[in-house]
Protein backbone atom coordinates (compact mmCIF):
# COMPACT_ATOMS: atom_id res chain seq x y z
CA UNK A 1 0.00 0.00 0.00
CA UNK A 2 0.99 3.62 -0.49
CA UNK A 3 0.44 5.76 2.59
CA UNK A 4 0.18 9.53 2.66
CA UNK A 5 -0.23 12.01 5.49
CA UNK A 6 -2.30 14.96 4.47
CA UNK A 7 -4.09 18.03 5.71
CA UNK A 8 -7.60 18.37 4.33
CA UNK A 9 -10.83 19.98 5.51
CA UNK A 10 -9.41 21.23 8.77
CA UNK A 11 -7.63 18.11 10.00
CA UNK A 12 -4.59 15.92 9.46
CA UNK A 13 -5.23 12.43 8.09
CA UNK A 14 -3.39 9.24 7.28
CA UNK A 15 -4.60 8.32 3.83
CA UNK A 16 -4.07 5.63 1.24
CA UNK A 17 -3.55 6.01 -2.48
CA UNK A 18 -6.83 5.41 -4.29
CA UNK A 19 -6.61 5.12 -8.05
CA UNK A 20 -4.46 7.48 -10.04
CA UNK A 21 -5.55 10.78 -8.56
CA UNK A 22 -7.49 10.18 -5.37
CA UNK A 23 -6.91 9.30 -1.72
CA UNK A 24 -8.91 7.23 0.74
CA UNK A 25 -9.32 8.64 4.26
CA UNK A 26 -9.43 6.42 7.37
CA UNK A 27 -13.22 6.80 7.51
CA UNK A 28 -13.57 5.59 3.93
CA UNK A 29 -14.21 8.91 2.24
CA UNK A 30 -12.46 9.57 -1.05
CA UNK A 31 -10.79 12.93 -1.79
CA UNK A 32 -9.01 14.25 -4.84
CA UNK A 33 -5.23 14.40 -4.54
CA UNK A 34 -5.18 17.93 -5.92
CA UNK A 35 -7.40 19.11 -3.05
CA UNK A 36 -5.08 18.18 -0.18
CA UNK A 37 -1.91 19.51 1.43
CA UNK A 38 0.78 16.84 1.56
CA UNK A 39 2.78 16.40 4.75
CA UNK A 40 5.81 14.17 5.23
CA UNK A 41 4.32 10.63 4.96
CA UNK A 42 5.45 9.64 8.42
CA UNK A 43 3.49 8.72 11.52
CA UNK A 44 4.29 10.83 14.59
CA UNK A 45 6.85 9.25 16.90
CA UNK A 46 7.16 9.36 20.67
CA UNK A 47 10.81 10.39 20.74
CA UNK A 48 12.43 12.77 18.28
CA UNK A 49 13.09 11.02 15.02
CA UNK A 50 16.66 10.16 14.06
CA UNK A 51 17.29 11.17 10.47
CA UNK A 52 20.53 9.85 8.99
CA UNK A 53 21.68 10.95 5.57
CA UNK A 54 24.47 9.60 3.43
CA UNK A 55 26.96 11.64 1.45
CA UNK A 56 28.95 10.35 -1.48
CA UNK A 57 27.13 7.01 -1.57
CA UNK A 58 27.18 6.68 -5.35
CA UNK A 59 30.63 6.38 -6.90
CA UNK A 60 29.78 8.62 -9.84
CA UNK A 61 28.49 11.40 -7.54
CA UNK A 62 31.65 11.16 -5.44
CA UNK A 63 33.68 11.65 -8.62
CA UNK A 64 31.43 14.54 -9.63
CA UNK A 65 32.31 16.29 -6.36
CA UNK A 66 35.97 15.31 -6.76
CA UNK A 67 36.07 12.98 -3.79
CA UNK A 68 37.23 9.43 -3.88
CA UNK A 69 34.60 6.95 -2.76
CA UNK A 70 34.55 6.66 1.03
CA UNK A 71 35.78 3.53 2.77
CA UNK A 72 33.04 3.73 5.36
CA UNK A 73 29.72 5.55 5.10
CA UNK A 74 29.91 9.33 5.21
CA UNK A 75 26.86 10.12 7.31
CA UNK A 76 25.37 13.24 8.79
CA UNK A 77 22.27 13.85 10.91
CA UNK A 78 19.32 16.11 10.29
CA UNK A 79 16.63 17.53 12.57
CA UNK A 80 12.94 17.04 11.92
CA UNK A 81 12.52 20.73 11.11
CA UNK A 82 14.29 20.07 7.82
CA UNK A 83 11.43 17.86 6.57
CA UNK A 84 8.60 19.16 4.44
CA UNK A 85 5.96 17.42 2.32
CA UNK A 86 5.19 16.89 -1.36
CA UNK A 87 4.30 19.94 -3.49
CA UNK A 88 5.86 22.28 -0.94
CA UNK A 89 8.23 25.17 -1.40
CA UNK A 90 11.86 25.21 -0.33
CA UNK A 91 13.54 28.54 0.20
CA UNK A 92 16.61 29.60 -1.72
CA UNK A 93 18.22 32.34 0.36
CA UNK A 94 19.01 35.59 -1.41
CA UNK A 95 22.45 35.79 -2.97
CA UNK A 96 23.05 32.04 -3.08
CA UNK A 97 24.99 30.84 -6.14
CA UNK A 98 24.63 27.06 -5.95
CA UNK A 99 21.66 25.22 -4.48
CA UNK A 100 21.06 21.71 -5.79
CA UNK A 101 18.60 18.87 -5.21
CA UNK A 102 19.60 15.34 -4.28
CA UNK A 103 17.14 12.58 -5.20
CA UNK A 104 17.43 9.84 -2.58
CA UNK A 105 15.74 6.60 -1.60
CA UNK A 106 14.64 7.04 2.04
CA UNK A 107 14.29 3.99 4.26
CA UNK A 108 11.71 4.09 7.08
CA UNK A 109 12.63 1.86 10.00
CA UNK A 110 9.82 -0.43 11.16
CA UNK A 111 11.02 -1.89 14.44
CA UNK A 112 13.78 -1.36 16.98
CA UNK A 113 17.04 -2.29 15.27
CA UNK A 114 20.10 -3.10 17.32
CA UNK A 115 23.10 -5.10 16.12
CA UNK A 116 21.17 -6.30 13.10
CA UNK A 117 22.92 -8.68 10.74
CA UNK A 118 22.96 -7.83 7.08
CA UNK A 119 20.94 -10.92 6.20
CA UNK A 120 18.14 -9.84 8.57
CA UNK A 121 18.19 -6.14 7.67
CA UNK A 122 15.08 -6.11 5.48
CA UNK A 123 13.00 -7.39 8.42
CA UNK A 124 13.54 -4.03 10.13
CA UNK A 125 12.25 -1.84 7.29
CA UNK A 126 8.66 -0.56 7.32
CA UNK A 127 8.77 1.11 3.95
CA UNK A 128 10.36 3.51 1.54
CA UNK A 129 9.81 7.04 0.38
CA UNK A 130 11.54 9.64 -1.76
CA UNK A 131 13.63 12.42 -0.23
CA UNK A 132 15.11 15.47 -1.90
CA UNK A 133 18.06 16.39 0.29
CA UNK A 134 18.78 19.92 -0.95
CA UNK A 135 22.24 21.34 -0.37
CA UNK A 136 23.34 24.96 -0.51
CA UNK A 137 26.96 24.70 -1.46
CA UNK A 138 27.72 28.37 -0.78
CA UNK A 139 27.59 27.53 2.93
CA UNK A 140 29.93 24.53 2.83
CA UNK A 141 32.73 24.63 5.37
CA UNK A 142 35.31 21.95 6.03
CA UNK A 143 34.17 21.34 9.61
CA UNK A 144 31.83 18.40 10.05
CA UNK A 145 31.27 18.70 6.31
CA UNK A 146 28.55 18.73 5.09
CA UNK A 147 27.77 21.15 7.89
CA UNK A 148 24.24 21.76 9.15
CA UNK A 149 24.05 25.21 7.61
CA UNK A 150 24.20 23.42 4.24
CA UNK A 151 21.93 20.51 5.09
CA UNK A 152 19.63 21.24 8.00
CA UNK A 153 17.72 24.30 6.93
CA UNK A 154 13.99 24.61 7.58
CA UNK A 155 12.02 22.77 4.93
CA UNK A 156 15.11 21.93 2.91
CA UNK A 157 14.38 18.20 2.81
CA UNK A 158 11.14 17.51 0.95
CA UNK A 159 9.95 13.95 1.49
CA UNK A 160 7.07 11.92 0.05
CA UNK A 161 4.52 11.84 -1.40
CA UNK A 162 4.10 8.20 -0.38
CA UNK A 163 5.41 5.83 2.20
CA UNK A 164 5.34 2.55 0.32
CA UNK A 165 5.15 -0.63 2.39
CA UNK A 166 8.37 -2.62 2.24
CA UNK A 167 6.48 -5.71 1.10
CA UNK A 168 5.39 -3.89 -2.03
CA UNK A 169 8.95 -3.13 -3.17
CA UNK A 170 10.39 -6.27 -4.73
CA UNK A 171 14.01 -5.13 -4.88
CA UNK A 172 14.86 -1.73 -3.37
CA UNK A 173 18.40 -2.14 -4.70
CA UNK A 174 17.18 -2.04 -8.28
CA UNK A 175 15.15 1.13 -8.64
CA UNK A 176 15.62 3.85 -11.22
CA UNK A 177 16.01 7.39 -9.86
CA UNK A 178 15.41 10.50 -11.91
CA UNK A 179 15.28 14.23 -11.30
CA UNK A 180 13.62 16.72 -13.65
CA UNK A 181 14.01 20.47 -13.35
CA UNK A 182 11.23 22.31 -15.18
CA UNK A 183 10.61 19.14 -17.17
CA UNK A 184 14.21 18.56 -18.24
CA UNK A 185 15.89 15.37 -17.00
CA UNK A 186 19.03 16.39 -15.13
CA UNK A 187 19.79 13.36 -12.99
CA UNK A 188 19.41 9.65 -13.75
CA UNK A 189 20.65 6.73 -11.73
CA UNK A 190 19.77 3.44 -10.15
CA UNK A 191 19.88 2.34 -6.54
CA UNK A 192 21.96 -0.66 -7.63
CA UNK A 193 24.92 1.73 -7.88
CA UNK A 194 25.02 2.60 -4.17
CA UNK A 195 28.45 2.05 -2.65
CA UNK A 196 26.89 0.95 0.66
CA UNK A 197 23.57 -0.76 0.03
CA UNK A 198 20.54 -0.65 2.33
CA UNK A 199 21.19 -3.95 4.20
CA UNK A 200 24.79 -2.88 4.82
CA UNK A 201 23.68 0.52 6.13
CA UNK A 202 21.23 -1.03 8.59
CA UNK A 203 23.90 -3.42 9.81
CA UNK A 204 26.45 -0.61 10.04
CA UNK A 205 24.30 1.89 11.94
CA UNK A 206 22.58 -0.61 14.21
CA UNK A 207 25.99 -1.86 15.33
CA UNK A 208 26.43 1.30 17.40
CA UNK A 209 23.08 3.07 17.48
CA UNK A 210 19.68 1.52 18.14
CA UNK A 211 17.24 2.67 15.48
CA UNK A 212 13.56 3.05 16.33
CA UNK A 213 10.37 2.80 14.27
CA UNK A 214 9.99 5.93 12.18
CA UNK A 215 13.71 6.68 12.02
CA UNK A 216 14.94 7.49 8.53
CA UNK A 217 17.98 6.68 6.45
CA UNK A 218 18.45 8.83 3.36
CA UNK A 219 20.71 6.74 1.19
CA UNK A 220 22.55 9.29 -0.93
CA UNK A 221 22.28 10.54 -4.49
CA UNK A 222 23.87 9.70 -7.86
CA UNK A 223 25.60 12.24 -10.06
CA UNK A 224 23.84 14.94 -12.03
CA UNK A 225 23.17 17.74 -9.58
CA UNK A 226 22.57 21.22 -10.98
CA UNK A 227 21.81 24.64 -9.54
CA UNK A 228 18.09 25.41 -9.19
CA UNK A 229 16.90 29.00 -9.43
CA UNK A 230 13.92 30.54 -7.68
CA UNK A 231 10.75 29.34 -9.38
CA UNK A 232 12.20 26.03 -10.59
CA UNK A 233 9.94 23.00 -10.27
CA UNK A 234 12.06 20.06 -9.15
CA UNK A 235 10.64 16.54 -9.47
CA UNK A 236 12.62 13.78 -7.78
CA UNK A 237 11.23 10.40 -8.76
CA UNK A 238 12.05 6.83 -7.82
CA UNK A 239 10.58 3.91 -9.72
CA UNK A 240 7.67 2.37 -7.85
CA UNK A 241 8.02 4.75 -4.88
CA UNK A 242 6.77 8.07 -6.16
CA UNK A 243 7.42 11.41 -7.79
CA UNK A 244 8.13 14.15 -5.25
CA UNK A 245 7.49 17.68 -6.48
CA UNK A 246 9.06 20.77 -4.95
CA UNK A 247 9.28 24.40 -6.00
CA UNK A 248 12.16 26.70 -5.17
CA UNK A 249 10.97 29.88 -3.49
CA UNK A 250 12.42 33.20 -2.52
CA UNK A 251 12.75 33.69 1.23
CA UNK A 252 13.01 36.59 3.56
CA UNK A 253 16.59 37.90 3.62
CA UNK A 254 18.74 35.46 5.57
CA UNK A 255 20.78 37.02 8.36
CA UNK A 256 24.43 36.38 7.68
CA UNK A 257 26.55 35.07 10.51
CA UNK A 258 29.85 35.84 8.86
Amino acid at each position, binding site marked *: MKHARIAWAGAVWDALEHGADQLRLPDGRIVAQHAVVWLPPLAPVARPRTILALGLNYANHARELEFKAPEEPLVF*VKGEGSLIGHKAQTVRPDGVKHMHYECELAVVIGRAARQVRRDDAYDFIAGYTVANDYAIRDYLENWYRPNLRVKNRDGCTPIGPWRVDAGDVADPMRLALQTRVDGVVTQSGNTRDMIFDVPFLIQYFSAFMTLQPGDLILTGTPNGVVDCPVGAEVVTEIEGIGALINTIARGAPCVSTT
Partner: protein
Amino acid sequence: MNAPGTFWPTGTVYGCLLNFRREWQQWGERMAQPPHTAPPRAPVLYVKTANTWSTSGAGIMLPVGADTVLVGASVALVTGPRQWLAGADRTRPTVAGYVLVNDLELPGASYFRPAVRTQCVDGLLGLGAHAVAPDEAGDPALFALQVRINGDLRQTIRFDDLIRDAATLLRDVDAFMSLREGDLLLLGCDADRPTAHAGDHIEITLADIPVFGVLSNTLMPARILDTAS
Protein backbone atom coordinates in the same frame (compact mmCIF):
# COMPACT_ATOMS: atom_id res chain seq x y z
CA MET B 1 9.95 22.84 33.37
CA ASN B 2 9.77 19.16 34.08
CA ALA B 3 9.53 17.99 37.67
CA PRO B 4 12.86 16.98 39.26
CA GLY B 5 14.26 13.74 37.99
CA THR B 6 12.20 13.54 34.84
CA PHE B 7 13.97 15.74 32.30
CA TRP B 8 13.91 14.22 28.85
CA PRO B 9 14.28 16.23 25.65
CA THR B 10 11.22 16.53 23.45
CA GLY B 11 13.15 17.91 20.48
CA THR B 12 16.49 17.56 18.76
CA VAL B 13 19.73 17.89 20.75
CA TYR B 14 22.35 19.98 18.95
CA GLY B 15 25.97 20.20 20.02
CA CYS B 16 28.34 22.96 19.02
CA LEU B 17 31.97 22.46 18.02
CA LEU B 18 34.82 24.79 18.86
CA ASN B 19 32.94 27.29 20.99
CA PHE B 20 35.61 27.65 23.67
CA ARG B 21 38.23 30.24 22.85
CA ARG B 22 40.95 28.13 24.47
CA GLU B 23 40.35 25.23 22.07
CA TRP B 24 40.18 27.63 19.15
CA GLN B 25 43.57 29.07 20.18
CA GLN B 26 45.03 25.59 20.54
CA TRP B 27 44.11 24.92 16.93
CA GLY B 28 45.88 28.09 15.86
CA GLU B 29 47.21 27.98 12.30
CA ARG B 30 46.17 24.36 11.83
CA MET B 31 42.70 25.69 11.10
CA ALA B 32 44.03 27.10 7.83
CA GLN B 33 45.63 23.84 6.77
CA PRO B 34 44.05 20.97 4.80
CA PRO B 35 41.52 19.53 5.01
CA HIS B 36 39.96 22.48 6.84
CA THR B 37 41.70 25.30 4.90
CA ALA B 38 39.97 28.05 6.91
CA PRO B 39 38.54 28.60 10.39
CA PRO B 40 34.79 27.97 10.67
CA ARG B 41 32.58 31.01 10.08
CA ALA B 42 29.08 29.87 11.05
CA PRO B 43 28.49 27.74 14.17
CA VAL B 44 29.52 24.12 13.50
CA LEU B 45 26.83 21.86 14.90
CA TYR B 46 26.27 18.17 15.43
CA VAL B 47 23.29 16.15 16.60
CA LYS B 48 23.17 13.87 19.62
CA THR B 49 20.48 11.48 18.41
CA ALA B 50 17.81 10.19 20.79
CA ASN B 51 19.51 6.79 21.17
CA THR B 52 22.36 8.56 22.99
CA TRP B 53 20.25 9.97 25.82
CA SER B 54 20.91 8.67 29.32
CA THR B 55 19.26 9.91 32.51
CA SER B 56 21.32 11.11 35.43
CA GLY B 57 22.20 8.15 37.61
CA ALA B 58 22.02 5.69 34.72
CA GLY B 59 24.88 3.39 33.87
CA ILE B 60 26.26 3.98 30.38
CA MET B 61 27.46 0.89 28.60
CA LEU B 62 30.47 1.36 26.36
CA PRO B 63 30.32 -0.24 22.92
CA VAL B 64 32.21 -3.40 22.14
CA GLY B 65 35.88 -2.66 21.57
CA ALA B 66 35.83 0.71 23.34
CA ASP B 67 37.36 1.29 26.74
CA THR B 68 37.86 5.04 26.66
CA VAL B 69 35.54 8.00 26.21
CA LEU B 70 36.14 11.73 26.12
CA VAL B 71 34.03 13.53 28.71
CA GLY B 72 32.45 16.68 27.29
CA ALA B 73 30.81 18.41 30.22
CA SER B 74 28.55 21.24 29.15
CA VAL B 75 25.31 23.08 29.69
CA ALA B 76 22.50 22.89 27.19
CA LEU B 77 20.05 25.64 26.61
CA VAL B 78 16.49 24.30 26.39
CA THR B 79 14.40 26.24 23.92
CA GLY B 80 10.90 27.38 24.74
CA PRO B 81 8.07 28.42 22.44
CA ARG B 82 9.06 30.70 19.58
CA GLN B 83 7.94 34.24 20.10
CA TRP B 84 6.80 37.19 18.05
CA LEU B 85 8.38 40.38 19.26
CA ALA B 86 6.43 43.54 18.48
CA GLY B 87 7.36 44.82 15.05
CA ALA B 88 9.64 41.87 14.24
CA ASP B 89 9.53 40.28 10.80
CA ARG B 90 9.95 36.71 12.09
CA THR B 91 9.75 34.73 15.32
CA ARG B 92 12.65 34.30 17.69
CA PRO B 93 13.49 31.31 19.87
CA THR B 94 13.17 31.66 23.62
CA VAL B 95 15.13 30.05 26.42
CA ALA B 96 13.02 27.90 28.72
CA GLY B 97 15.94 26.77 30.86
CA TYR B 98 19.34 25.17 31.14
CA VAL B 99 20.35 21.60 31.87
CA LEU B 100 23.65 19.88 32.64
CA VAL B 101 24.93 17.51 29.97
CA ASN B 102 27.69 14.94 29.80
CA ASP B 103 28.49 14.77 26.10
CA LEU B 104 30.56 11.60 25.76
CA GLU B 105 32.41 10.72 22.58
CA LEU B 106 34.72 7.93 21.51
CA PRO B 107 38.20 9.31 20.84
CA GLY B 108 39.87 9.58 17.48
CA ALA B 109 37.40 11.44 15.26
CA SER B 110 38.53 14.37 13.16
CA TYR B 111 36.61 17.62 12.87
CA PHE B 112 36.49 17.33 9.07
CA ARG B 113 33.64 14.86 8.64
CA PRO B 114 30.57 14.50 10.86
CA ALA B 115 31.51 12.28 13.80
CA VAL B 116 28.32 10.19 13.96
CA ARG B 117 30.27 6.96 14.44
CA THR B 118 31.88 8.32 17.62
CA GLN B 119 29.18 10.70 18.91
CA CYS B 120 25.88 8.92 18.27
CA VAL B 121 26.65 5.67 20.07
CA ASP B 122 23.84 4.37 22.31
CA GLY B 123 23.87 6.04 25.72
CA LEU B 124 26.62 8.60 25.12
CA LEU B 125 24.78 11.70 26.37
CA GLY B 126 24.13 12.06 30.07
CA LEU B 127 21.33 14.53 30.85
CA GLY B 128 20.80 16.40 34.10
CA ALA B 129 17.81 15.41 36.20
CA HIS B 130 15.99 18.66 35.56
CA ALA B 131 16.19 21.88 33.64
CA VAL B 132 16.67 25.09 35.58
CA ALA B 133 14.62 28.15 34.66
CA PRO B 134 16.60 31.17 33.39
CA ASP B 135 15.80 33.33 36.41
CA GLU B 136 17.15 30.64 38.74
CA ALA B 137 20.17 29.86 36.57
CA GLY B 138 21.27 33.46 36.10
CA ASP B 139 23.74 34.63 33.47
CA PRO B 140 25.19 31.60 31.64
CA ALA B 141 28.49 33.47 31.24
CA LEU B 142 28.95 32.97 34.99
CA PHE B 143 28.52 29.20 34.86
CA ALA B 144 31.49 27.17 36.13
CA LEU B 145 31.27 23.40 35.86
CA GLN B 146 33.28 20.87 37.81
CA VAL B 147 33.97 17.45 36.36
CA ARG B 148 34.86 14.72 38.85
CA ILE B 149 35.85 11.21 37.90
CA ASN B 150 35.81 8.74 40.79
CA GLY B 151 35.76 11.74 43.11
CA ASP B 152 38.85 13.46 41.67
CA LEU B 153 38.37 16.95 40.26
CA ARG B 154 39.53 16.58 36.66
CA GLN B 155 38.30 19.72 34.97
CA THR B 156 36.78 23.10 35.74
CA ILE B 157 34.99 24.78 32.86
CA ARG B 158 34.14 28.46 32.82
CA PHE B 159 31.64 29.79 30.32
CA ASP B 160 32.94 33.35 30.36
CA ASP B 161 35.27 32.99 27.38
CA LEU B 162 33.20 31.52 24.58
CA ILE B 163 33.55 32.32 20.89
CA ARG B 164 29.78 32.85 20.95
CA ASP B 165 28.05 33.41 24.28
CA ALA B 166 24.68 31.76 24.82
CA ALA B 167 22.62 34.57 23.31
CA THR B 168 24.93 34.99 20.32
CA LEU B 169 25.05 31.24 19.66
CA LEU B 170 21.27 31.02 19.78
CA ARG B 171 20.94 33.93 17.37
CA ASP B 172 23.59 32.69 14.93
CA VAL B 173 22.22 29.14 14.84
CA ASP B 174 18.67 30.38 14.46
CA ALA B 175 19.79 32.47 11.50
CA PHE B 176 20.09 29.30 9.40
CA MET B 177 17.81 26.77 11.12
CA SER B 178 14.87 27.48 13.39
CA LEU B 179 15.24 26.01 16.84
CA ARG B 180 11.93 24.46 17.81
CA GLU B 181 10.34 24.32 21.22
CA GLY B 182 12.02 21.53 23.15
CA ASP B 183 15.24 21.48 21.15
CA LEU B 184 18.49 21.58 23.13
CA LEU B 185 21.55 23.58 22.14
CA LEU B 186 24.78 22.75 23.94
CA LEU B 187 27.00 25.73 24.63
CA GLY B 188 30.12 23.74 23.69
CA CYS B 189 32.75 21.56 25.31
CA ASP B 190 36.06 22.98 26.50
CA ALA B 191 39.48 21.90 25.26
CA ASP B 192 41.37 19.06 26.91
CA ARG B 193 38.34 16.95 27.68
CA PRO B 194 39.25 14.36 30.33
CA THR B 195 39.09 10.70 29.44
CA ALA B 196 37.17 8.08 31.38
CA HIS B 197 37.06 4.30 31.23
CA ALA B 198 34.77 1.41 31.96
CA GLY B 199 34.01 1.36 35.68
CA ASP B 200 34.56 5.08 36.16
CA HIS B 201 31.98 7.25 37.89
CA ILE B 202 31.56 10.72 36.36
CA GLU B 203 29.97 13.61 38.22
CA ILE B 204 29.26 17.02 36.75
CA THR B 205 28.13 19.88 38.97
CA LEU B 206 27.63 23.60 38.73
CA ALA B 207 28.87 24.31 42.20
CA ASP B 208 27.65 27.87 42.63
CA ILE B 209 24.13 27.00 41.56
CA PRO B 210 23.19 23.86 43.47
CA VAL B 211 19.69 23.80 41.99
CA PHE B 212 21.25 22.19 38.89
CA GLY B 213 21.98 19.11 40.99
CA VAL B 214 24.61 16.53 40.19
CA LEU B 215 24.73 14.80 36.82
CA SER B 216 26.23 11.41 37.53
CA ASN B 217 26.82 8.45 35.27
CA THR B 218 28.88 5.29 35.65
CA LEU B 219 30.56 3.77 32.63
CA MET B 220 30.03 0.05 32.23
CA PRO B 221 32.04 -2.36 30.11
CA ALA B 222 30.51 -3.63 26.89
CA ARG B 223 28.24 -6.59 27.16
CA ILE B 224 28.41 -8.64 24.02
CA LEU B 225 24.94 -9.50 22.79
CA ASP B 226 24.40 -13.05 21.65
CA THR B 227 23.46 -12.45 18.05
CA ALA B 228 24.54 -15.87 16.84
CA SER B 229 21.30 -17.63 17.74
